[in-house]
């Protein structure tokens, strides 16, 4: 690990763009290919890339294991919570129409929120599975 300067500099150049790409895939999923699953994997891959180049402790200082472990149930809670909100607004479970003034905007908002829930769970799961395996090397 002496000759890894190129790797480290390259990683530092790449990582912001991986995160940007993940966010693009997330929020452009309504218009092009992509969505929460793909964006979640890209975001998880960014953390894993950082952990591989700079070491697990460095990555865990930036993205602590507790945070990613909370993210796993949090995403499911966001998804299911959107459904409960629509129940409380008088519609069927996971029917996003009452979330905004116009039903179609409510649908759009609901899709965005639900996809965000998917992103949170997928990114959290991918990162914490990697953390758990990599943590066993110690």
């Amino acid at each position: 690990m002496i000759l890894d300067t190129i790797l480290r500099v390259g990683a530092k150049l790449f990582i912001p763009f991986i995160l940007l790409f993940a966010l693009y895939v997330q929020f452009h999923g309504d218009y092009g290919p992509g969505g929460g699953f793909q964006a979640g994997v890209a975001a998880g891959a960014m953390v894993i890339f950082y952990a591989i180049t700079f070491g697990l402790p460095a990555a865990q200082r930036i993205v602590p294991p507790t945070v990613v472990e909370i993210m796993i149930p949090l995403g499911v809670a966001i998804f299911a919570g959107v459904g409960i909100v629509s129940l409380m607004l008088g519609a069927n479970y996971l029917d996003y129409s009452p979330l905004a003034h116009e039903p179609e905007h409510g649908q759009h908002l609901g899709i965005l929120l639900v996809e965000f829930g998917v992103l949170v769970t997928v990114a959290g799961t991918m990162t914490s599975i990697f953390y758990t395996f990599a943590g066993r090397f110690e």
Partner: protein
Amino acid sequence: MIESLITFALLVLMAAAALGVVRLHDLFAVVILSGTYSFLLATVLVVFDAVDVAMTEAAVGAGMSTVLMLTVLGLTKMEETLPVHTPLLPLAVAGITGAVLIYATLDLPEFGIAEAPIHQHVAPYYLEHSIEQTTVPNVVTAVLASYRGYDTLGEVTVIFTAGIGVLLLLKGRRGRGKGGEGAA
């Protein structure tokens, strides 16, 4: 014409990668080859215009699985242990199952035709109404998150369960070893 040539070439490469996975005993090579297989499959899906699925296959199958498998390889041996029993029974089971599956494909509608039952059921409704009902131009996203929200909630729950399961199996033990946090 060009498209079927590309598909054919990709499928041949996929078959080669699969053969390599079976033949090799160096597990590092096997992991890399299965990543290659996933990436080729993603390319096939791009040729079929299924970009959303292709993206998932490339990200999860080729990227994430390969990284996780390599991490696991670091914890175990790099060489495959040779099986002690003869491979005849598994070979027969796999051969018969494969033959049954190929026989079943004979009943499928012709590849890619528009009259297939799957394109006649709810798909036309989604294609016609998804923009006016959800304002989302990508029909795949509209179907995934809105029309089929229940299914997607189920999928997220599956990922949640997998993540929690891995954490319970691997972290629980380590916590007990330390006599600390993760102990049940």
